């Protein structure tokens, strides 16, 4: 902790482009600590809460046959005392072994890796579209606060923000299904005559639309309040006094400054993005981590659920770390703080 104090002092002396090493180290350390805590929680939640885990997780509940129960005990490590089991678990996690999935009869890491990229493709596309649209909509609404555009877009944003993503997906599906324009299930169609990439793109239309609409709602509300905070700043009066056109004042002066605090909030809303991915993938049978989670719940497939929780948490922690490291580079005000 004392090292960080010295690092902060170095920054105030002379502004630099890169964040000081102590800052980077502190943020990385915090992220690692969070991950370690996830690993610990992941072990104890599954072992302690359910009472007798073998009985609770057995495929047929209390009527499971004794042979299957014995095997389940072995695999969950219930035959060891908890400290021995914990050390075993930590060792295997750090050597990249998350156990074997009950339902897929394959290594959890392989199952997750196979589903990883479809999720990144789907959520990533929706995120990029939503961030651009959300910034544009929010900035315009906030700049002309109280205008008809602002009232309509803010009211729509609050409505979509109040809607679980999967609900929007279901509503869209039930009305569009009969027309059969867009595919409603999966990521590709073996009978399709389209080139493979176009087929995937075609399948992405509906789920990406649903995710993007809900994310746009969230992002435009963040951006709007950020522009509202900025709107009366002195530097904008100066810009106007110079005789700049109104939209130039917005684009060149207000927007860059309002964008930075919004960026932090965009990154902080990653948990929200994960929730959207899980439920929307379920509705559209998209072969990603979200649909995998839904399928893992059916068993329940405990090793797979543990692995997925680890991956989702690690993903969000890493994204937050990236935001923490990126902000001082982009925003001198954070560097000085």
């Amino acid at each position, binding site marked *: 902790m004392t090292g960080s104090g010295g690092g902060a002092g170095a920054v105030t002396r002379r502004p630099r482009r890169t964040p000081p090493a102590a800052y980077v180290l502190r943020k990385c350390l915090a992220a690692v*600590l*969070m991950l370690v*805590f*996830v690993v610990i929680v*992941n072990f104890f*939640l*599954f072992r302690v*809460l*359910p*009472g007798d*885990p073998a009985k*609770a997780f057995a495929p047929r509940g209390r009527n499971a046959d004794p042979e299957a129960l014995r095997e389940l005990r072995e695999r969950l490590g219930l035959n060891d005392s908890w400290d021995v089991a914990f050390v075993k678990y930590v060792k295997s996690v750090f050597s990249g072994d998350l156990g074997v999935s009950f339902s897929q009869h394959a290594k959890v890491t392989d199952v997750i890796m196979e589903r990883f990229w479809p999720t990144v493709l789907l959520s990533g596309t929706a995120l990029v579209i939503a961030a651009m649209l959300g910034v544009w909509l929010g900035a315009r609404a906030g700049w002309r*606060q*109280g205008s008809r555009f602002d009232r309509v877009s803010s009211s729509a944003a*609050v*409505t979509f*923000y*109040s*809607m*679980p993503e*999967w*609900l929007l997906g*279901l*509503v869209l*599906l*039930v*009305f569009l*299904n*009969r027309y059969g324009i867009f595919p*409603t299930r999966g990521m590709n169609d073996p009978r399709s005559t389209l080139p493979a990439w176009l087929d995937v793109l075609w399948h992405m239309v509906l789920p990406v639309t649903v995710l993007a609409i809900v994310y746009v709602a969230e992002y435009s509300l963040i951006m709007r309040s950020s522009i*509202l905070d900025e709107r009366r700043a002195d530097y904008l009066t100066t810009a106007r006094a110079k005789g700049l056109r109104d939209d130039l004042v917005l684009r060149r002066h207000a927007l860059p400054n309002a964008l930075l605090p919004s960026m932090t909030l965009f990154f*902080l809303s*990653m*948990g929200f993005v*994960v*929730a959207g991915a*899980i*439920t929307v993938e*379920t*509705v559209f049978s998209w072969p990603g981590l979200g649909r995998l*989670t*839904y399928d893992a*719940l*059916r068993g*329940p497939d405990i090793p797979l*659920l*543990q692995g*997925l*929780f680890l991956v*989702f*948490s690690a993903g*969000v*922690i890493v994204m*937050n770390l990236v935001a923490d490291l990126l902000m001082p580079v982009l925003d001198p005000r954070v560097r000085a703080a």
Partner: protein
Amino acid sequence: MSAAVVPARRLRGGAWRRFLRDREGMSGLVVLVLFGLVAIFASLLADPAGLEVTKADGPLAAPPSGAYPLGTDHAGRSLLTMVIHGSQVTLLVGLAATVISMVLGTLIGITSGHFSGMLGGGLNRLTEWFLVIPYLPLAIVLATVFPPDVPKLIAVIIVIGVTSWSGTARLVRAQTMAIEARPYLERARALGGGHWHQMTRHVLPNVMPLVLANTTLTVSLAIIAETTLSFLGLGDPLRVSWGRILDEAYSQAAIDRGAWWWILFPGIAVVLVVRAFNMCGRALERILDPRLEGKP
């Protein structure tokens, strides 16, 4: 001592008057009161016998008609009856989970703001951890491993409460630290007021308005969480809630049947209530946060 309480009370009185003039907040409140009445008088509005699959006598998955204004589901139950009774579980879970979340958030927020050192620092780390960890995977894991002896309804309430307090705690912590820097707390300390006295008599009354504004926003998140968990099949299978109706619609192929009424009407109910809570929350935030003064 009264000096610390009076401003909070005065603020509350003024806030109520300003809330009555806030169009967005009032329309939200009206919707909430209506749904609250529907939930309370559900059994008078619709016969609960209509919820049982065996006693349903309507046509199967039929579109809205005179006898069944919102249509029927796969078992011939009236969706109107189900939506009316579903409001009970959805609102109960949403409100109860919010109470847990508020108590936890306020307690942890004040404690971590008041005490420096190990206790405050540790609680602050815990809050940050819960802020970062994505809530849905955590809720899914918790709901899966929850002791099977606990009734599902209570399990869902606890799971949502435990996964949603961190935002409140962060807010309360910041406010606590701002209040602790004021002179009257120094006076209380100088007069020998203990930690408990400082926290309950001075900090808490000043934090409460903020917590109340935050509550309405938390309820909307809790209701979304309830419907989402039910949709994923983690809710109480024996009770009708809006999420449960939608889960059944999805798993009974409402989409392939083109049964739009089965999804649209419970969906509208969810969005109306969540939006109404959000509207009240935004109105309260405007009234209580001086930084937003002058914004509509």
